[in-house]
């Protein structure tokens, strides 16, 4: 019998239907179990994996805080701008030509480029123009062009001619601080951008009913500096003028108060903040802290102050000062040929005698001199935290070779930056208490409430008595027999000190061909100091000696500063102090 002819006994349909029912029920229960597993037990895992795929964070830009001078004048500020974009998918074909025409005309763009962007489907975001003013956008928006939109953004603006470009610095294209105070104060200025979490479909559409987690943007705080815009601008102008006149390589001006607040910090060469691309690294570096130099005679006050404070000498103590003096293999000379003189300490400072200062320095000794240099702030950072700061070189006295004590006592064989040096004179002007230099007065929050910055660290370096004695010596510098009579300002008592040092050529590392560094640092009024001005010029050309290159700039800026800050003369007469042994 062929197989298909085989007969069979039929199964019972009722039993088979019941079995089918059981089978179906079993499968359904298994499915239900699997569903409980997916949607109950493992639901969170699947849900979070799915969410990861569609969640996307939109950053809400926030305003960057202003940098202002002490009076609230803006040195750097942010303005609201629009980034105009086109969504090519939303551009209807019949309006394409009109939109291309309008956009290319308004923003003065190449027609073909705009056309390429408008036709860049399936892209949904093509930037047409950045930094568009809100007014310009409002006008464009009024035309109601489909597919054309704008995003709010912020642009950093630096008012022209603040004279503080080197100090303020600038922001990068991402809006974060890059150079100068913009970089240092970035955390305070930047604020916190807000976050808008949205769920995005595959095509890039925002899923409407999905509520995004919103983090409110926190606006950056304004930073109020101790700077005075007018003094800053004048200092920059005066410095640049003189530097160009003398063909100096670089230079800086520091104007500060005895309590450490910096009123102006100018640097030459500088750059225009509207043409950052056209500047080089040298222009942008802030030489006031980035350039270390041998201070020269301005350092003599530390030697004198140390010896006075230690009770080793008095202002009237008489020294025998020849024109030159031999130490080991080196002969140290005064700047001008003179016969051997009987000079007081006052005279040594007023006339800036190297030979006299060496004797005072040897009285003080290497260890003590080193201590006082350190206390006055040498060899360590200024605390301003400005980028590229060079804290200078102050070696340990154990490593000093034979001639180093004499040379350091009058400012050679060590290096400092301009702020460090100015701080020494601020300390003397402040009655011997050194306050760490500061630039930031405080911050202004969104509530316009001013929060003062932390008080700068203060430390007594020398007694008020010693400071007073030094002040008188420095005033004698501008006296008839001093080295800088041209630093006098009519009506005011002015104290100061010239400085000249051979300069190391930054290119060769040798003194040869480096020229010299000319410094003048002083304060006024001499008997109740309010303002310290320090002018440093590196490598001025010409036959100027000592402070002659820098002194006129000092006089100019100091007069302007006193006037601007309304500091009255003290109407007192300088006491007569003895510079030489009574004949």
């Amino acid at each position, binding site marked *: 019998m062929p197989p298909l002819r*085989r007969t069979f006994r039929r199964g*019972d349909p009722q039993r088979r239907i019941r079995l089918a029912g059981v089978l*179906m029920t079993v499968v359904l229960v298994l*499915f239900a179990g699997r569903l409980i597993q997916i949607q109950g037990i493992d639901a969170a895992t699947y849900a979070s994996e799915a969410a990861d795929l569609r969640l996307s964070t939109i950053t809400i830009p926030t305003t960057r805080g202003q940098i202002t001078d002490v009076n609230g004048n803006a040195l750097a500020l942010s303005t609201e701008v629009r980034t105009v974009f086109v969504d090519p998918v939303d551009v209807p074909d019949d309006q394409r030509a009109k939109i291309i025409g309008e956009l290319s005309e308004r923003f003065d763009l190449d027609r073909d480029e705009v056309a390429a962007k408008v036709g860049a489907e399936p892209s949904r975001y093509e930037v047409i123009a950045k930094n568009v003013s809100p007014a310009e956008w409002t006008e464009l928006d009024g035309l109601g062009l489909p597919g054309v939109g704008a995003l709010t953004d912020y642009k950093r603006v630096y008012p022209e001619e603040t004279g503080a470009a080197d100090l303020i610095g600038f922001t990068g294209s991402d809006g974060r601080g890059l150079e100068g105070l913009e970089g240092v104060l970035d955390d305070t200025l930047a604020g916190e951008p807000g976050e808008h979490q949205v769920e995005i479909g595959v*095509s890039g559409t925002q899923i409407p009913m999905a509520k995004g987690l919103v983090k409110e943007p926190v606006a950056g705080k304004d930073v109020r500096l101790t700077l005075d815009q007018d003094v800053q601008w004048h200092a920059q102008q005066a410095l640049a003028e003189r530097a160009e006149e003398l063909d100096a390589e670089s230079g800086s001006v520091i104007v500060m108060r005895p309590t450490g607040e910096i009123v102006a910090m100018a640097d030459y060469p500088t750059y225009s903040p509207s043409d950052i691309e056209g500047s080089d690294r040298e222009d942008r570096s802030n030489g006031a802290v980035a350039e270390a130099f041998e201070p020269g005679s301005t350092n003599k006050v530390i030697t004198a102050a140390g010896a006075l404070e230690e009770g080793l000498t008095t202002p009237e103590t008489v020294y025998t000062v020849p024109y030159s003096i031999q130490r080991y293999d080196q002969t140290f000379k005064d700047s001008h040929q003179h016969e051997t003189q009987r000079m007081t300490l006052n005279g040594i400072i007023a006339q800036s005698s190297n030979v006299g200062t060496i004797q005072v320095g040897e009285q003080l000794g290497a260890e003590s001199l080193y201590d006082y240099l350190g206390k006055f702030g040498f060899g360590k950072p200024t605390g301003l935290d400005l980028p590229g700061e060079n804290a200078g070189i102050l070696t340990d006295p154990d490593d000093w070779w034979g001639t180093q004590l004499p040379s350091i006592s009058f400012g050679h064989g060590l290096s400092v930056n301009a702020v460090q040096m100015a701080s020494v004179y601020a300390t003397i002007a402040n009655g011997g208490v050194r306050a760490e230099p500061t630039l930031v007065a405080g911050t202004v929050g969104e509530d316009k409430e001013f929060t003062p910055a932390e008080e700068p660290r203060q430390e007594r370096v020398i007694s008020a008595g010693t400071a007073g004695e030094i002040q008188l010596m420095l005033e004698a510098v501008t006296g008839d027999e001093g080295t800088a009579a041209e630093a006098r300002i009519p009506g005011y008592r002015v104290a100061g000190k010239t400085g000249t040092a051979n300069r190391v050529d930054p290119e060769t590392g040798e003194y040869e061909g480096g020229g010299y560094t000319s410094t003048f640092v002083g304060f006024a009024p001499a008997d109740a100091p309010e303002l310290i001005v320090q002018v440093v010029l590196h490598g001025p050309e010409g036959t100027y000696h000592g402070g002659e290159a820098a002194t006129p700039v000092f006089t100019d800026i100091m007069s302007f500063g006193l006037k601007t800050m309304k500091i009255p003369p003290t109407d007192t007469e300088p006491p007569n102090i003895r510079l030489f042994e009574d004949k």
Partner: protein
Amino acid sequence: MAVSASAPSAAGTGGAGTARDGSRVWLRELPQVRNRPLTSYYLIFGSSALLIALGLTMVLSSSMVDSFTETGSAFSLFQKQIAAAAVGLPLMVLASHLPIKAFRAVGYPAVLISSALLIITAFKGVEYGYGAVRWLEIGGITVQASEPAKLAFALWGANVLARKEELKQLVEWRQLLLPLLPGCGVLVLLVLLGTDLGTSFVLLSTFLALLWVVGAPSKLLVGMIGLVASLATIMVAVESFRVARITSFLNPEADPTGSGYQLLHGLYALGTGGLFGVGIGGSREKWGFLPHPESDFIFAIIGEELGLIGTLVVVGLFGVLGYAGLRVASRAKDPFTRLAATSVTAWIVIQALVNIGTVIGVLPITGIPLPLVSAGGSSLIPTMAGMGILLALAKAEPDARKALAARGPSRVQRALSWLGLQNTGSGDAKRPGAATQANNASRPTQVRARRNRQR
């Protein structure tokens, strides 16, 4: 006959019990409710109505995003589905009022027309998407011929076997397999030409279900299952995308952007829904992540928007539908009713299980719609007609017929009276034996129905 004895007793206890209040009474009555003549009818009607309503809602919700992106109107696909439902609903009502013999008569022509459509599709059809099935364009409407083919096969198969049983021919294997096996084979082959693996599987399963219920020997069934399995293996091996689908369902995370993508996003949707869902319309996966959210993977969107509650309700509704269909088959005395109820139920339930099994990652992706729920007129209309047929079969249960007759003609029946169908409604009545039997049984039912109305 056993029928006349069981029906009155069931109705009698039910009538006495409803007078008392409280759920305890209701609970005690549950076994009797199960035995009521119209239980199958109401279960089928209720579950299919709920599934269709849920389906329309979910089709709207899941298709809105894609419709909007493609046509600019969020409702374009939903409108098509509504139109399909508008065609399907009269068909369903009509079918539920047709006499059984009409279904028997329709079998052969339906299979022939389906085969013809499948042949045209195989040669003139348009292919859509990744490894997708072929569609036939008729006057601007795209039709998937494999969908009505399932209904046609279910009716034809039931009719062929019922005839043989009535003729007492079902003693040889030959009678079981001819012409059913070659007929099924041709249909499967044609469907496979359109690369529709899922539909061929449903066809073969319906075929096996028919053999099972008709009482075919286990050896034959095992042989058939073996044949289907080897065929499936060959089909899978031939087309590379099927291999990828098969392997990816075992570990969708292995290739999350490729073969495992759809399944993974289906699971994401289900997981996102959790216990209670994100609410109707709130699906995230429909925003372009999950492919075919309105058709093959609508179950995932149901899970996302309505949660575990929603998915269990859907599974439960298909369970109820399956139970009611098998109940019709089990209570039927006439072979065609039993077989047709079996084949239609098997078709709907197996298709639903395959679709759900695919979405929940226990079966490989085959690409078949969820019956009554998924978008697609080609699927919805034959399925609704199938439901109408199942309702007609449920009403054809001898006791049910009596219970309905006691109520008098319904509004629909009256509306359809011009078709001249009432008289043939109890088509067996022309057979003398059955007529007397029906008359005898109808009187007590009528009396009881009147009593019920008075309460």
